[in-house]
């Protein structure tokens, strides 16, 4: 699978779509986007596009059913004689509505489970062996969007959509179908179907954003790929120092690859007047693991928060547990302890969402333990520091928190990248037990797929990324800043970024092409 940063996408599909979009009347524009999305989807996944359309139809029907139930309920309520009858109506329709939303969720989660996970668990060649069908592109992403739509309609936050094609576009919109962001219908539905004209500002800021993503992906992510691959595929051959380096570079690679792809999604969305939700917010400035997940793959974390964490926490049985815990453990520790149930569901789901491998379960478990225990540690720390009168808001303390969280994240990504949980534990063992700088001293580190010039370039890139991240943390958007500049200035920015990618990109003769990393999940 080629990434969005391909000749076909940047040279053909996107420009042609922009052109066509602008030429047709506003009413037709959403259909141009849908047609482009279908062409793109079919070019990658062929007939499997049927599954996306099936999901779209399923949520369209469930949405219609929910809104029709609402109308019936209102009518029945008006006809009810007294408050007891009204309560009965309410109870009855709550049951119907729950049935409808359950069907919608089950269909989409079921398709995801069958197409993506079943092949891992059934023996090859058996009756249930459906691995021949293949996995539709982006199914992990659009299925969650489908679920969010039916639940949002059920909860009343979103009006049921009458036009199924709009829902098809919502699920398949080509800049986001491959790796997200997992948007909500309430966020993008209106602007997707608005057919807004392409503006010079949108075109420029979108292009700049896309070029910025191109640089991150091609210059940084693809460059470190060879070393990461070399070390992770034969980790037993390397000492702890090399493993630490590989895990760090993998974290950088994943960030640049994934957030670069998100830059494409946001940038392309901007060109068509669609504001995509941001998926990254300077994740490496996080001070706790919990905060990291509010800044990294934000749309996934938010999805699990809204559709798993809250519903589980507020379900009747869990509420009873919470109540009991509060009575026993007090108002602070009690809810925290009880939140372990919902948190466990979230991280089990998060792990499984990334894949069926044991490393993903370990990855979920790792963050579950860290975040849950982190809550207790935070309370304990507050108590101790409060009693001793130590301030925990100083710059030094914040810096320590950031370094600590960075280490936690790198270890997490090491688990994530390993081929199995066993491999991950073996690598972690050597990271702790066999850490040396020997490879750096004797120069063998330069033989792993990156030469001195590569390391120098990556170092420069890290400094640039850090500077840009710092600026954004303090509320300045460097690229947005450059954009109001006159035409020549904007053109210079786009061109310079493009040229940097062309000259310093890791493509061609000495490199292997890299699949977009999150598209496999």
């Amino acid at each position: 699978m080629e990434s969005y940063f391909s000749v076909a996408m940047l040279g053909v599909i996107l420009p042609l779509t922009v052109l066509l979009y602008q030429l047709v009347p506003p009413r037709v524009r959403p259909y141009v986007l849908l047609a482009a999305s279908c062409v793109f989807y079919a070019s990658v996944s062929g007939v499997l596009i049927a599954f996306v359309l099936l999901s779209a139809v399923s949520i369209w029907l469930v949405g219609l059913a929910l809104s029709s139930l609402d109308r019936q309920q209102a009518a029945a309520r008006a006809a009810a004689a007294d408050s007891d009858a009204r309560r009965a109506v309410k109870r009855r329709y709550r049951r119907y509505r729950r049935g409808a939303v359950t069907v919608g969720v089950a269909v989409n989660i079921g398709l995801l489970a069958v197409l993506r996970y079943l092949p891992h668990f059934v023996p090859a060649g058996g009756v249930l062996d459906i691995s021949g069908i293949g996995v539709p592109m982006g199914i992990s992403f659009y299925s969650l969007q489908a679920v969010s739509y039916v639940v949002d309609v059920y909860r009343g936050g979103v009006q049921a959509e009458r036009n199924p094609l709009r829902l098809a576009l919502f699920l398949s919109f080509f800049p986001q179908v491959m790796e997200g962001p997992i948007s909500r219908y309430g966020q993008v539905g209106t602007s997707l179907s608005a057919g807004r004209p392409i503006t010079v500002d949108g075109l420029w800021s979108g292009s700049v954003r896309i070029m910025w993503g191109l640089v991150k992906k091609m210059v940084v992510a693809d460059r470190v790929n060879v070393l990461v691959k070399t070390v992770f595929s034969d980790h037993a051959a390397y000492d702890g120092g090399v493993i630490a380096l590989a895990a760090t570079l993998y974290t950088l690679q994943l960030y640049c690859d994934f957030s670069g792809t998100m830059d494409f999604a946001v940038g392309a969305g901007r060109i068509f007047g669609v504001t995509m939700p941001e998926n990254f917010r300077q994740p490496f400035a996080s001070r706790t693991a919990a905060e990291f997940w509010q800044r990294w793959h934000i749309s996934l974390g938010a999805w699990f928060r809204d559709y798993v964490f809250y519903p589980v926490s507020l379900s009747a049985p869990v509420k009873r547990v919470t109540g009991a815990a509060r009575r026993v453990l007090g108002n602070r520790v009690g809810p925290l302890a009880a939140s372990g149930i919902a948190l466990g569901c979230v991280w089990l789901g998060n792990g499984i969402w990334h894949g069926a491998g044991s490393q993903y379960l370990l990855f979920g478990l790792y963050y579950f333990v860290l975040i849950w225990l982190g809550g207790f540690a935070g309370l304990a720390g507050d108590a101790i520091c409060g009693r001793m009168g130590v301030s925990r808001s100083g710059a030094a303390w914040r810096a320590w928190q950031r370094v600590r969280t960075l280490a936690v994240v790198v270890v997490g990504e090491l688990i994530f990248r390993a081929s199995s949980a066993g491999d991950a534990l073996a690598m972690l063992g050597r990271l702790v037990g066999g850490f040396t700088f020997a490879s750096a001293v004797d120069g063998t580190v330069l033989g792993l797929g990156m030469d001195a010039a590569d390391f120098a370039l990556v170092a420069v890139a890290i400094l640039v990324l850090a500077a840009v991240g710092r600026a954004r943390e303090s509320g300045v958007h460097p690229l947005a800043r450059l954009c109001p500049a006159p035409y020549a200035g904007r053109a210079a920015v786009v061109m310079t970024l493009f040229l940097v990618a062309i000259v310093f990109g890791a493509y061609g003769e000495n490199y292997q092409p890299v699949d977009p990393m999150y598209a496999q999940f």
Partner: protein
Amino acid sequence: MIQRNKGLPLPLRYALRTVAAVAVFLVVLAVLSHVVMPKNNQREFGQIDARANGVMGEREGSVDVLFLGDSEAFSSFSPLQLWGDRGITSYVSATAAQRLCYTRTLLARALKRQTPRVVVLETNCTFARFSMADAARRLLKDVFPVFEYHDRWKILTAEDFLSPVRYTWADELKGFRLRRALEAKPADTQGYMEPTDELTPMADLNRAYLEQISQMCKNAGARLVLVSTPSTKNWNMARHNRIAQVADELDVDYIDLNSGSDKVEIDWQQDTYDAGDHLNLRGAQKVTRAIGSILAGRYGVGDHRGDEAFSDWDEAHGRYVKRLSEL
């Protein structure tokens, strides 16, 4: 510029500015291309596929026969043997797993300084699939070499900025390769060249590139000859039939060394180093002898032996013979 455009309507002004911006961009790409290009066609200068590109370093107008193709070509045709046998000057511009879009590039590069009488295209590569994107990328690299040589930013020197690009190097073996020359691994000849009426499909894109290559040869005054070298793994009658048909349509000659009157007697026990995929030195010698006779007899390619201007070929041939004896 902005002053002058003030009277123009806004869309036109934007259009003009865009044209100007694109022009600037292309100029910068051209400049960068010059900077990162190897300043000579040698591996040490960073040249990619130096052996195949060595033809650019041959004396102008000195090569009469150009061989193109994939690994089948560079393991089957030996220009220095051809010189020894017939006094024919030739060069093999072949690369592993060559696609026709690259064949076109190599042909264009060779035709800049050479006027070959015959261009031999080994047919295995005519079936190798490539995408529109591959073709587009190749075209981009040809127009702006920065796309091919950008990674040389790591090793740029002052010379790269100041010197012109020159081509002075040619491969010692003129593109022929001696890797695994003496190894032998018997081939399974079951079903090899069994008669059939089937035609192996050829992608439209491949067909279009073949047509273009044929046209380039015509324009340069060269005869394009499609040649299938012996290979039990890569050649069969269905492919033969397709190439015969295409050759007919393009009005070029087709010579199949696997079957028919031009068949070369290959000992499939001894003449291949990887079970019928590629020929070893013994096989290559047989093929080169056969192709030499065809080139001299059927196409009247001249004998330059004894010509003072080609004395370097005699020297190269001497070294070649010595090298073979030392294998």
